[in-house]
Every structure is written in C-alpha cells, then in structure tokens.
C-alpha cells in the first residue's frame, strides 16, 4: 500500500511511502499512538549587505536587539527581508539567530521523497529517505531491538546558499494539546518548563512581537511536550536550539549556514570559510566561499503516556550521552 510500517518489540512506526516521512509512532507497551507530521525546513537568515568594515567600526550598528519591521535605507532602498533599521539592525550569525521578517519556516520542496529504501534485517530495521531538491537532506529512521525510541539519523548538507543563508530545522507536528508549554533540559540533569512568549517581549502570542521564532528558542539536550494523554519528545546527541512555536509542535535546529558576520565578535559568517571574507552581495560570488560541510547527527524520538515525558527522556539520557566505547583488534582465525 502507500504506507511502510516497521516495528520492534516496543514501537511501531508508520511512514508515508511517497514522501518518506514518519506519519505515526505507536508505543505498543503503553498503548499510545501519536500521529505526527514530520518535516524538514529552514528559516532564511536575516542580513543587511553592509560591508564588514563598515559594520565593525561604526558602533551604533551593533544594535540592541530592538527591531522594527521592514527597513528602508537613506537612499530609499527597500530591505523587506530585514528585521531592523539603520540604527538597530542585526544579521543572523554565529551568536545571533534571526530569521527574515516573514519568520516563516520554508518547507523543503518537493513533497515527494527522491527515494525511499527499506532495510529489514533480523536485528536492525531502517527506512532511508532522501528529501528536497538536490537531496541535501537525507534521513535514516532506525529501530533497534529492545529500544523504546526511533533513532533518526539526519545527514544535512552542503546547505545551498543561493538565498543568503539558511537555519535548517527538523520539525514534528502532533495533535498534543501542549497549551503553549514545553520542557527543555540542557544539562542532562534538570528540565525547565518553558512557556511560549515567556519573555514578555517575544512570542507569537505577543501582538507586538518581532522575534516570535528566535525569542522562543532554548538550548536543548532533550525536549518534550505533553498533555494528559500523550507525551512526545526528543533526546539529541549534541546541544542544539529547540522550541515549540505552536501547540503540539517540536522543532530542533540541526544545521546553520549563514553568509554574514553578526558583528558580535567572531568576525566571520557561519560558513566554514577559512578565508574570512564576507561576500557583497552574496548571490553572485557565493561560490568563492567554503563548500559547506555535510553534518550527520542523531535524534531519538520517544512517545509515551501523558505526564511521562520527563521520565521517558531521563530514562535514555545516560545511555545516549554515554555511548559504549568500542575497541577493535584482529588476529589470525582461531588464534585466541
């Protein structure tokens, strides 16, 4: 049919065969099914094509985080993608995550996966999916015996830079009535309850918010949402930024490639550029920059009953954060 179902002794995971994404995860032991919409997408990075030296030696360009929607410079040129003004602008860069004014997560076109391959062995089961134009995002969804998480191995890059920079996100949408709350833990010891719009300045719930996305991102080693019936969360393998920007959703930033310095001290864009120059404008000479890396990481997705999010996350943290150490040797057959 049009679904792929793979399962182990604890979980059953359903995929849409044409798009290669996960559509539901069932915890057979808890009798809990969470229907999900899995997607990869990116925020476009805000930037103003001011040359580097201009920015650095003109202090008031440092900005103070207060932003006005839209921007027109003295010559009347429009910079609609910018959030800010001549006095208060700020590029997205190493220290600052700032999407363009539309604050929109751009899905990866086209919706159909380039390829979906299923590997079904007696021990490990895998579904390989290649997404998006150019296939620069790939995923291996893996089930391991006796493990209550779906292991998502994402491979991202090189990230195309034709639009001035991308902040790549893995996002999950569920029907969980999380009521504006989500929980993040960034030290492997203590979950913090986050409330969307907590900062009283940012957040989609704040009518005058200008930074509804970055203002609700928090450092994550694990993140979950829950209601009285379901819990759904993720344990990452390296510290990342994450948020729940609308009820029932979870998103984690898995890669960034920005073309501009954010003038906060690094003096370089996040573009693996080891020649340290910033293009002006980026579109026509982007090829002179670093080629961009391919990163690989792991998310472990967990489903459980309402109220069990913290214990589910905590239960696998130790083994995820402290992988077994593998030492290998060889010797002629039959020696030892």
């Amino acid at each position, binding site marked *: 049919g049009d679904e792929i179902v793979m399962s182990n002794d604890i979980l059953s995971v359903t995929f849409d065969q044409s798009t290669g994404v996960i559509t539901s995860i069932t915890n057979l032991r808890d009798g809990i099914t969470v229907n999900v919409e899995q997607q990869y997408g990116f925020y476009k990075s805000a930037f103003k094509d001011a040359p580097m030296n201009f920015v650095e030696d003109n202090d008031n360009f440092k900005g103070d985080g207060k932003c006005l929607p839209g921007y027109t410079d003295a010559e009347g040129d429009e910079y609609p993608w910018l959030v800010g003004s001549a006095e208060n602008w700020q590029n997205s860069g190493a220290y600052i995550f700032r999407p363009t004014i539309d604050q929109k997560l751009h899905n990866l076109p086209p919706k159909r996966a380039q390829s979906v391959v299923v590997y079904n*062995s007696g021990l490990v089961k895998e579904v390989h999916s290649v997404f998006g134009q150019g296939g620069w995002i790939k995923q291996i969804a893996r089930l391991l015996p006796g493990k209550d998480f779906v292991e998502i191995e994402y491979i991202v890059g090189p990230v195309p830079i034709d639009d001035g920079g991308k902040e790549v996100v893995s996002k999950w949408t569920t029907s969980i009535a999380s009521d504006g709350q989500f929980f993040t833990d960034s030290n492997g010891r203590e979950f913090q309850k986050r409330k969307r719009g907590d900062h009283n300045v940012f957040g989609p719930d704040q009518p005058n918010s200008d930074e509804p996305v970055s203002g609700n991102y928090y450092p994550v080693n694990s993140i979950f949402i829950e209601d009285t019936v379901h819990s759904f969360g993720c344990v990452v393998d390296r510290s990342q930024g994450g948020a729940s920007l609308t009820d029932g959703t979870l998103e984690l930033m898995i890669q960034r490639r920005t073309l501009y310095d954010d003038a906060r001290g*690094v003096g*370089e864009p996040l573009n*693996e550029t080891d020649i340290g120059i910033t293009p002006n404008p980026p579109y026509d000479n982007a090829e002179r920059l670093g080629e961009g890396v391919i990163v690989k990481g792991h998310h472990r997705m967990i489903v459980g009953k309402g109220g069990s999010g913290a214990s589910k996350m905590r239960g696998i943290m130790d083994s995820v954060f402290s992988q077994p150490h593998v030492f*290998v*040797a060889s010797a002629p057959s039959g020696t030892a």
Partner: protein
Amino acid sequence: ASPLYELDDAMGVVQHHDGVSGTSKQHVAYDYAKRIAGGMNKANSFVTDALRKLLLNSNEGVLDNLTYCLLNNETICTVSQEASREGSKEDIYVIVYNALAKERHEVVSLPIDSSSYDFVEKLGGEQSDWVPVKSSVLPNANYAQVIGAASDIMHFEAKDIPPLGASVFRVSRLEDEVLSSTSIPAVPRNLRRSVQNDM
C-alpha cells in the same frame, strides 16, 4: 605526567562557550579538534594497553593492533575493515566498554568491508566458551560522502555489558554451510528501483 592529561587539558580548553556552541572562528574550531585528537591518541594507547592487560591476561603479542575506533561514527575503522575484506584469514575481536554504572544492552555497529555474513560470538563466563549473538549486516549508504567509509555495517547485539566493565566479542567469517542457520540476511527493498534490482 598522566597519559590522560593531554585529553583532559584539551577538554578543559573546549569548555569555552565557543567550543561548546560552535561559534568560534573556523581556524579556532580546527584548533579545538586538533587538541582533542591529540589527547585521544595518547589516551587511546594507554587505555587499550590497560584493557589488554585487564581483560585478556595477555602478554605481548596478542591482539597487538587493539585500538579505539575514533571514526566509528563516520563508519571508518581500518582494523575491522581490513580484517573483513574478502580473502582475509583474520577474526575481528571487539571489546565493548560500558562507562555507565549500570548494566546495559546495546546494538553495536562495526564498519566492515564485506557483505558476506560474519558470525558473532560473545566471550562467555569461561574463557573458552563463545556464545553466538544476533547480528546482521546492512549496506552503508554513506550519505555523508565520507572518504574511506566502509561498504557495510555489521550490527550485533551486545547484551548484559557489565557496569563500568566490558564484554568481548569475536567476529569470524562464516563458512557457507553455516550461513542458513545463524543469521537472517537483510532484505533491501527499494520501492523505487526495479524488481530486478531488488533480486
């Protein structure tokens, strides 16, 4: 003077928020990586020596090339790749160390350069008995285009690894007549390629 100091020191340096969050200049990032790699190499030889003495009661000359596969996560491990190639007459020994203070069960993945099926056993209680464990070999898609990555990945079940302890496994080449009884081959089904390919 400890052989672990260099790694200790490197990890101290990388605690800088730039190291933790990846917001350093590019050449600084390379420097962090270089420091850690140097520390790991020193620690590697010290730890493998200790393991060899502790676990294998071995004197010199046994499992000399025991090493910690630093690039295992990039599906590169020269020792297991070389020992698994067609024509090699070697067994692969894997020591899985559990740094947690509790017993654990894991699936360990080992980069190999052969899709023919190997036979995995765990060193049981007595030195001489090897107990078969579940394993399977899947092709390595190498989506990250890693140069030198293994062609296949062997997954095997490492159960009951003791707390703060290690288990020893042996991977040996299956003789044909044993194949059908021990492990189930992975059945790749590419929903997009022709049935012919699937065969």
